[in-house]
């Protein structure tokens, strides 16, 4: 039974005030708050269970290694991956996508080869591919969304040519909330022998993800959006792709033997995990994912769909507000601008005075902003702990912003 009040009581920060008002935290797309179990796990790890991992033979090193390594299996279970060795631990999606760009794409792609991107990718899934364009003449092919923010999977598939070497696409837009039918994209791409990288930074927070079912080659997630510590994350890399990859970052942990004139690497996934990792952050992420799974991803998705529908019905009544992203099954992420002179930063500032935290800016999605013809928007992004009462507070604050700025 999903009890949002019980869940709210698990997140200590949600009971604080901001500017003298109860906090209404609607910036979850940027980063989610942390439940007490995660905070406790981080404290316990530092207070009682801390040492470096993998190298030591002493008690604490073994204990920390055990705790840290067990998270690989938790992430695999969370993402519907059978073999935990296909999970590469890292600091988040940016690191994961760069690992693929440097480790898989750069050594393989040549001038004229193509990478297909949707126009609503986050900069983390754009800039690493720009590196390939700049440095080795790879061509970026963009697929637009329609006026509702819908990305037609067939349009992505139709963009595949003999030159296509990779499709990199989000599972859920961080700006529009648009869900992408990545399974259809993967099925068609697989027929053509084209690997698919899915940016799951947003989707994995809001819906059950089963990578075995999706059939992608790479799937990136970020811990701090998943109610876990910042600086934690992972990328799923299919075993055969791991074999094709070179290591991206060199250092400790990723090697088996180093001599003056030779180096042999560790087996994957550690081959792609150089240096002392975010030990405690990763342990915290494991606890966060267990927490989400104990609530149930289906339950979280159902609750958020309810909040989304309520928020949409309220926002639709505001004739001074323009929403970007209108697909019916979108995640509970709303981008909007106000008619008239109100700049998104003005709106955000006024909402903040009412305790309502939203994002204002380009949301690290330059190409999408360009397509929509705006330089910035406000974004309210909901999480499992948000309520319809908070939607009401948000709507009231929007009325005030319109009144002050109109």
């Amino acid at each position: 039974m999903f009890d949002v009040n019980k869940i709210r009581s698990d997140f200590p920060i949600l009971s604080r005030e901001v500017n003298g008002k109860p906090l209404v935290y609607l910036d979850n797309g940027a980063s989610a708050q942390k439940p007490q179990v995660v905070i406790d796990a981080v404290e316990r790890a530092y207070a009682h269970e801390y040492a470096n991992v993998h190298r030591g033979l002493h008690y604490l090193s073994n204990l920390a290694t055990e705790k840290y390594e067990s998270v690989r299996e938790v992430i695999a279970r969370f993402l519907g991956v059978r073999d935990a060795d296909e999970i590469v631990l890292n600091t988040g999606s940016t690191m994961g996508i760069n690992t693929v760009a440097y480790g898989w794409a750069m050594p393989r792609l040549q001038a004229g080869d193509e990478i297909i991107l949707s126009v609503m990718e986050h900069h983390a899934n754009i800039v690493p591919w720009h590196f390939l364009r700049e440095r080795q003449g790879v061509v970026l092919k963009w697929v637009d969304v329609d006026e509702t923010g819908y990305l037609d999977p067939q349009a992505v598939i139709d963009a595949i040519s003999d030159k296509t070497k990779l499709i990199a696409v989000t599972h859920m837009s961080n700006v529009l909330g648009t869900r992408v039918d990545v399974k259809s994209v993967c099925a068609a791409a697989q027929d053509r022998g084209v690997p698919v990288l899915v940016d799951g930074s947003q989707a994995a927070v809001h819906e059950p993800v089963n990578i075995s079912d999706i059939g992608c080659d790479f799937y990136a997630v970020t811990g701090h959006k998943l109610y876990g510590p910042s600086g934690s994350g992972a990328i799923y890399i299919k075993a055969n792709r791991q074999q094709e990859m070179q290591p991206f970052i060199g250092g400790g942990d990723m090697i088996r033997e180093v001599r003056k004139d030779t180096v042999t690497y560790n087996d994957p996934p550690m081959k792609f995990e150089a240096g002392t990792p975010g030990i405690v952050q990763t342990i915290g992420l494991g606890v966060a994912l267990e927490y989400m799974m104990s609530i149930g991803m289906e339950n979280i998705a159902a609750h958020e769909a309810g909040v989304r529908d309520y928020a949409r019905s309220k926002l639709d009544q505001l004739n001074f507000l323009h929403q970007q992203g209108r697909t019916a099954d979108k995640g509970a992420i709303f981008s909007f601008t106000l008619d008239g002179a109100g700049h998104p930063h003005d709106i955000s500032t006024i909402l903040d005075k009412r305790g309502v935290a939203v994002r204002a800016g380009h949301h690290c999605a330059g190409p999408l902003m360009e397509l929509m013809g705006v330089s910035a928007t406000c974004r309210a992004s909901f999480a499992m702990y948000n309520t319809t009462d908070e939607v009401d507070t948000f709507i009231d604050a929007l009325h005030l912003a319109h009144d002050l700025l109109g």
Partner: protein
Amino acid sequence: MASAAFEEIVEDFEFLDDWEDRYRHVIDLGKAMEDLDAAFKVDVNKVHGCASQVWLQFYTEDDMFRFDGDSDAMIVRGLVAVLRALYNGLPLNEVAAVDAHAELARLGLNDHLSAQRSNGVRSMVEKIQTVVA
């Protein structure tokens, strides 16, 4: 010692109890301010470190320090108007001595000067101080 124009704003603010009225007043000050000519909205006049776009155009008039400004955000535009009231008309050698933090505190707007606020008041003040240095 602040200018008469700024003292007038301080007096107006004394009648405004809550933040909504203060913000409304700041926004109104911005609305009342003349637009900066598009010709001056150029890179060299841009204030970096602001989340929105801000331009300040500096000049002197009868040896007194002056600037005009603009922003695409209404609250920031209002804050530009407040800073113009604070600084404009001062002798050049007195500009650096203005304690912007203390003066804005009199309006209850000093939180806009904290280092990590991205509205750019701090960057604007720094730019003003650089110009007269």
